[in-house]
């Protein structure tokens, strides 16, 4: 226990020293930078920055949940990015063409995003089961077609030419996700919270969640016990993809109100989500704070850049260090078959 305490202290000291020296290198004031960081993450007039953090946290947490669901079933789905993009594109497409708006319309648009992304994720599963392409490789490589298909659609068939950008037309206002009264925060994060609760139930109380976990822990065990592992794998991939698709649809309907080329790729939502899920070693309830943590670092970094003139890359370096420290403490996610004693 004392050993853990010491290593925690040592890690914090190292972080602080690195942070201070980086800020010194950037020729900025240390305390001013820290203040700017916290204000950027949690402050602002009427907590405006905090609301930005929450909105970002929702997207990152959503992607972390998507990664978590697949990883715990032993499916290394690192194609969240592609599924996110396909989900966003599909929902933008449906939203633009939908003749009606309102809650029913919003529901349909979200559903479209989930279905499209779920199907996109299943492609990797099919490639695995029938062609032997590892899930890791299949999902990763499917990111590229997804990205460029979206690029093509927003540059040509769906392009809003008058805007001069590779992006779709603006979506009808009646399909936008409503804002929380008195703020500029849309209700997308509530959807994510809802999904989070469902996933907790799924992980801790459902037969499907249990069977997926067993499959992930040992596929031979699952097979010999009579679990239908192929079916479980495909279903889990579809579920993981659908959640990524929902995140894409929420970003389209709540945040951007259109699909702009690269808007879901550049902020690295999917990859940050994967890192968040791994950082907490796939403990379901912990992805929520992990997602919030990363969102806070990102918006804090922007705040620091705005007011203290410290490049936001510094915060990203600190984030990287934290991940390294945490990852070295939680080795259970991937090496569960190494060093098995009798």
């Amino acid at each position, binding site marked *: 226990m004392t050993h853990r305490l010491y290593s925690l202290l040592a890690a914090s000291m190292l972080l602080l020293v690195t942070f201070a020296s980086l800020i010194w290198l950037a020729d900025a004031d240390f305390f001013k930078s820290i203040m700017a960081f916290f204000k950027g993450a949690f402050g602002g007039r009427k907590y405006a920055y905090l609301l930005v953090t929450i909105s970002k946290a929702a997207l990152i947490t959503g992607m972390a949940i998507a990664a978590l669901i697949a990883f715990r079933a032993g499916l290394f789905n690192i194609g969240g990015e592609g599924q996110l993009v396909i989900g966003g594109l599909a929902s933008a497409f449906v939203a633009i063409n939908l003749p009606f708006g309102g809650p029913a319309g919003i529901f349909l648009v979200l559903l479209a995003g989930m279905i499209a992304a779920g199907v996109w994720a299943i492609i990797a599963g099919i490639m695995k089961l029938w062609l032997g392409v590892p899930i890791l490789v299949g999902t990763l490589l499917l990111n590229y077609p997804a990205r460029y298909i979206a690029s093509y659609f927003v540059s040509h068939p769906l392009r809003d030419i008058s805007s001069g950008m590779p992006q779709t037309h603006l979506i009808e206002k009646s399909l936008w996700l409503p804002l929380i009264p008195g703020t500029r925060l849309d209700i997308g994060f509530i959807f994510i919270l809802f999904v989070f609760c469902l996933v907790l139930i799924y992980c801790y*109380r*459902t*037969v*499907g969640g*249990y*069977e997926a*976990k*067993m499959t992930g*822990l*040992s596929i*031979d*065990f*699952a*097979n*010999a*016990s*009579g*679990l*239908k592992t192929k079916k479980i794998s495909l279903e889990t991939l579809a579920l993981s993809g659908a959640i990524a698709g929902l995140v894409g649809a929420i970003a389209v309907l709540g945040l951007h109100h259109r699909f702009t080329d690269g808007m879901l790729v550049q902020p690295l939502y999917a990859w940050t989500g994967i890192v968040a899920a791994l950082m907490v070693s796939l403990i379901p309830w912990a992805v929520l704070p992990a997602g919030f943590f990363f969102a806070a670092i990102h918006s804090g970094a922007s705040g620091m850049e705005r007011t203290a003139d410290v490049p936001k890359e510094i915060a990203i370096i600190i984030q990287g260090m934290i991940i390294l420290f945490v990852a070295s403490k939680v080795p*259970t996610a991937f090496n*569960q*078959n190494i060093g*098995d*004693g*009798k």
Partner: protein
Amino acid sequence: MKAELHEISVNFGTFCAVNNVSLSFAPGEIHALVGENGAGKSTAMSVLFGLNTDYQGNIVINDQHRRWKSPADAISAGVGMVHQHFMLQETMSVLENVILCSEPVNKLGFVSFATAAKSVQNLIDSYDLQIDQTQKVSELSVGQRQAVEILKLLYRRSDLLILDEPTAVLTPNEKNELFQSLSNFKASGKSIILITHKIDEVMMIADKVSVMRSGNLISSKLLKNTSKDEIQQNIIGGTLPKPIKRKKMHPKNIGFEMKKVIIPGLATRRKPISLKVYLGEIVGIAGVSGNGQTPLVEAIVGLRNILSGNMLLSNETISDKDVSARRRKGLSYIPEDRQRVGLALDASVIENSCVSQIRNKKFSNGYFFNLQHLRKFSEQLVSEYDIRVGTVKSKVRTMSGGNKQKLVVARELEQKKQLVIAENPTWGVDIGAINKIHQELIKMRDMGHAILLVSNEIEEIMGLSDRIHVMANGQLSEAMSSAEVTANKLGKLMLSHNDPTLSEKLEKMQP
């Protein structure tokens, strides 16, 4: 080289793998070390080769006490070992592989391949090995690769060669070549240790034979002072344990039947397998591991498709059903590999104890499970089978081998299925757990279940089975009544590897 192991003991946790073993190896002698799988042969030799440094006792080389820090020490002192799995660089030539890590260098520090090639060729010629040193290892046959491994040792001037199951992968011709080379080494005064469980080879080539059983040295004699029967007796263990009390059963109804089943990956000659297990009997399948037991069990459980034939569980065909359908129909399975197949080590006892029954109405409505019922069920298993574990929420990884296995056995037997397949159910567990597991299997038999016991342990097979088949080289012998069969007879059948006359013998063995 003269080498001695002096009162060597090796413990893995509470498990004693080698118990106070003393052995001596003389120059110009082929010393065979025999025993069943897990008897401690390889562990004892890994001490001599420096792979295992955590032991009690002494290593004495040429009358000097030595203690290795690593295999490198042993190698520089002239001890060399060829492992069962070769350690060669596929894409490099024979020469490059042989001199790797002890390359001759010239003044400028470059590898002098000319010098190396000359000395390697000298070795090849003087021991009459059949290798071309310019060939790439990837182009070589298994036998040639083994020769390269041996050449590596010769190049490093090893005087004591340890060969771990060297013939396991060889064809008969390659085997003869190997034995010829070994005779040449012997003539040049090297000591050779042959780890094996094939008695025929021992009789053919060894000068001295040492037998190990469950970590103990049973005997160490010159070949001329012992006999094949005595060696066999020593390997298996002279006395059988007291039989567990069992009811007299008069099995009439067939519980499980295989009719002329051909299983892919089983034998070179695809001979169909037929097998019957009556309700209320234990049918044992004896055999040295790796003779086709795994494919057979996988085929029955449903993890492997069969090519032809039929399998019946209570007179209904199950050949086309998947694992879960077969389990529902009345099958439970205690797998050999509890670490990977029997359990999910990072899941809790609760999660492990209900895996194939989670969809059962008792535990769930098909969507949500009832945690209370699951916990109660696993607590019941833990107390009934005397499983030692912190709480049922603990991870299975934290349990000892015996307790892990008891959990697997408890889970599978508790379902009270008509057919129980037990594959090496007591492998690597302590004696107390062995007794408990054996009792439970007998109890199931007495209750009128059909039990198929696949085991490498002759004692276990003889002690539990009503009828016995022997599996060797992918073929199943006719069933023998366990009252009529002797351990020697079984041992002979099991150990006659690659023996072309085996099938004839098997046919003659019909009761």
